């Protein structure tokens, strides 16, 4: 710098410096007022990359938490439903053992049968439990009840001839149309013993029923009457447990962590057995059959079947419980990660107030100083003293 200093040099410098200091002061003030260290990408381009990634992560983990909460609520409903379900199994098994006792008379077994029937109704209600309007055991078809305790009816006409007496006849529920079957009606099965009535005929004497598979067999003693009735039609009425024909086995998943999905539902087949399994309903129907028709062999048979159903249901509850535990762990980990991420985000984006305030005060005094010295430096010229 040469030694000649001119008026305009000083004023330009003073202006520049005051402006520079004021800009710095403004920047500090803005970050203090907003609490943000990074206001724009160019403030720290490297940090902005991390910051955006962390924001995405936090938002995702928040969503995982919602997914988990949602899943856990469903699982808690499943758990309590299965708990009740298993109690009902226990009670049904006790009734089976009690009823199978040879000291029980037919009359008493009918009464026990009424108790068991109530349990069955309760079990169907449990199977149709819904959560937030969705049936919990219905797989993907959550809008339709998986099981239906429905009245069925049929009028036998041409099916019954002299030739078919003594052979089992399939029972069709003519109140339900089903285009997939040859008859155009739904095939009835899991018919509830005690609800079955054939107008004008007596069970045991005139006919027997395979309640599990839905078949009726007329026995020779009633043949005369049958052939008479053949023209007029024989009315059957009953109640049966119909499994919804939709797919009830879809597994529903929630994403609980990046790329990790977990099944959260328990399907009807998991709890009650699939279409080809020996189902809970079969066990209960067998028990009711035994109680209704005073057959201890059926009751003994049902004890084994109930055992199978009970174990299946217990297994489903255990699996559900294990999944809940896993969700808890994942949730806990996600919570810890959210805390970490939020801290990291804050470190990247937020102002360190202690530092910022001390810088602000420093800058303020620098600004002050530049104003004072500037004012002095441009005050006088030689003209003041001439």
């Amino acid at each position: 710098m040469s030694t000649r200093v001119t008026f305009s040099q000083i004023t330009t410098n003073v202006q520049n410096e005051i402006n520079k200091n004021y800009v710095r002061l403004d920047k500090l003030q803005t970050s203090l007022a907003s609490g943000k260290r990074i206001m724009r990408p160019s403030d720290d381009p490297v940090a902005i990359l991390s910051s955006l990634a962390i924001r995405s992560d936090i938002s995702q983990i928040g969503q995982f938490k919602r997914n988990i909460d949602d899943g856990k609520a469903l699982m808690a409903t499943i758990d309590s439903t299965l708990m009740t379900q298993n109690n009902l199994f226990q009670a049904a098994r006790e009734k089976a053992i009690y009823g199978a006792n040879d000291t029980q008379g037919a009359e008493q077994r009918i009464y026990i049968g009424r108790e068991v029937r109530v349990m069955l109704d309760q079990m169907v209600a449990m199977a149709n439990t819904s959560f937030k309007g969705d049936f919990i055991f219905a797989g993907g078809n959550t809008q339709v009840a998986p099981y239906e305790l429905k009245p069925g009816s049929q009028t036998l006409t041409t099916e019954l001839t002299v030739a078919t007496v003594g052979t089992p006849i399939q029972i069709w529920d003519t109140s339900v149309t089903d285009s997939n079957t040859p008859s155009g009606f739904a095939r009835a099965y899991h018919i509830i013993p005690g609800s079955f009535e054939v107008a004008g005929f007596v069970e045991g004497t005139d006919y027997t029923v395979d309640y599990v598979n839905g078949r009726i067999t007329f026995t020779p003693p009633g043949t005369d009457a049958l052939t008479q009735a053949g023209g007029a039609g024989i009315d059957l009425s009953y109640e049966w447990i119909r499994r919804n024909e939709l797919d009830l086995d879809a597994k529903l998943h929630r994403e609980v962590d990046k790329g990790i999905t977990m099944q959260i539902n328990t399907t009807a087949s998991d709890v009650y057995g699939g279409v080809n399994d020996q189902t809970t309903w079969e066990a209960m129907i067998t028990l009711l059959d035994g109680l209704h028709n005073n057959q201890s062999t059926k009751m003994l048979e049902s004890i084994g079947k109930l055992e199978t159903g009970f174990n299946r249901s217990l297994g489903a509850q255990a699996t559900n419980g294990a999944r809940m535990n896993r969700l808890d762990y994942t949730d806990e980990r996600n919570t810890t990660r959210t805390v970490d991420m939020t801290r990291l985000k804050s470190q990247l984006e937020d102002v360190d107030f202690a530092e910022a305030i001390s810088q602000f005060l420093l800058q303020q005094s620098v600004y002050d100083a530049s104003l004072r010295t500037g004012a002095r430096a441009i005050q006088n010229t030689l003209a003041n003293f001439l």
Partner: protein
Amino acid sequence: MSLFSALNTATRGMAAAQAAIQVTGQNISNANTEGYTRKRVELSPDSRRDGVYGSIGMGVEITSIARIRDIYIDQQIAEQIGDRGKARVMDEAMEKLEGLFAEPGDGGFNTHLNNFWNAWQDLANNPSDLAARGAVRTSAEVVTDMFHSVAQDLRMFRESRMEVLDSKVRILNGLMRDIHNLNTEIASQEAGNSRGAANDTRDQRDLMVRQLAEMVDVKYFEDELGRVTITTAGSLLVGPTSAVQLELYSSSKMLPDGSMSPVITELRFADSKKVFTPNGGELRAIMDVKDVLVPKYQNYLDTLAKTLVTEVNALHSEGYNLNRSTGVFFFDVSQTTAQGIKLSPSILKDVNNIAAAPAGRSSLPINFLPVGGVPALADPVIRLSNINPLYRDIIPGSLNIEWNGQSLQEGPGKDYVVDYQLGTIHFINYAKYGAGDALDVTLRHREGGYPGDGVGSLALAIAQLRQTPLLKPDPTGKSTQTLDQFYSSFVGELGIERQQAKSTFDTKSFLIAQLDSRQQSVAGVSLDEEMTNMIKFEHSYQASARFISVINSMLDTLLNI
């Protein structure tokens, strides 16, 4: 030497002091005038006549009024100021872009996209919930609105650069004309031997050259007649006797693939029509902002929109919605730019058209010849379900029909229309077929059927697109960046670019301030100095006057003898 000649000496002394004080006055008056260079009266003793004993001299002579200025500093400033202008324009443009993307904050794409993906997750959790469906649609609309508004702002910004460029070129043309005029003026004023006659005109011209240098990178020199010649990148802008004029024109080049490139703006000389490409200065920066910088971010944004549309649609169209149909697109397929992105009409009409459930697996392509070929003319419809009950839910795009070895066209007014869901092919222009002509139909269909209202795994799959690399394929063709990463990397790029522009601007500004200060130290008016000079010249004037009065009394003495 006579007493009369001594009177003359004193008069010239007074005249010189007067002139000097006038110059001092001029300096003081212009102490704050931009571009003003201080002047100084150059004096020399007049010693034309020799006395017998040596030279006494005939008083003082004003040789010139000099302009005290370091022209090399001016040259250096001219070299730097173009870079500063360029950096400033870039910085301002990128500040605007940063503002558009609004990151980091709660109003940027990052937040809106996150909400969009989360909405899909919520839908996966509650596929039959209308509120969750509404949330998916709303969050998607927020995203599309954001795309529209940023794309629109980018386009407007780009267009406004055109106006800025236009006005800059006008200013530039004006400057070149004015410099040329001043050249002529200076040359005529200083013709002969009157150096310094055009001092103030020179100040004016220096200022203009500096303005010019901020707009275009220039080199210049002054010839012996005082005229500047200004060149840029080998082209003459202002010559000793001429000044060029520039004009803007828009052009679009033919690309190797036969298509036309986007319209770009170029500069050319108005008379020769030769293209002029400035290498620096504000002009270069404005052109770069308009044709390179903004298009780059427009491209990024379009890529983002296109990928989002394509990927979401690819999954969505395969899924079942609550109305139990497939093949519905989530975004309008015909709109794949940031400017145009929008939801498909079916989604806008009914949120139940949002697909959350997956359709069954797609089968391998099947190929069959309909029995009897083209149906009888009375019923120009092929029902695939008549051939096989499984043949419904045709996967869009998988269907191809050949008639006598020739591909038929799908679409209203063409050869056939298809109901993909029902699996019917309706022939339109069927009069051209002969009954029983051979048809070769290839298609893929779905197996499995509708999985139920409560199945949301497709929505989950869409939500998981967020974590899937979809962009920036590596050499093996594998994508390496998710949408999020792609977006943050271009926001990061914007930040880095602005930081660079800002730091260039700061560096250049500092350099120029230094140079300016040095020039001020030479050419600037120092009031103290001028005050001192004023007193000096005042005294000098008084002394000369006093000298006249002494000579006067000497003449009195002589005349009174």
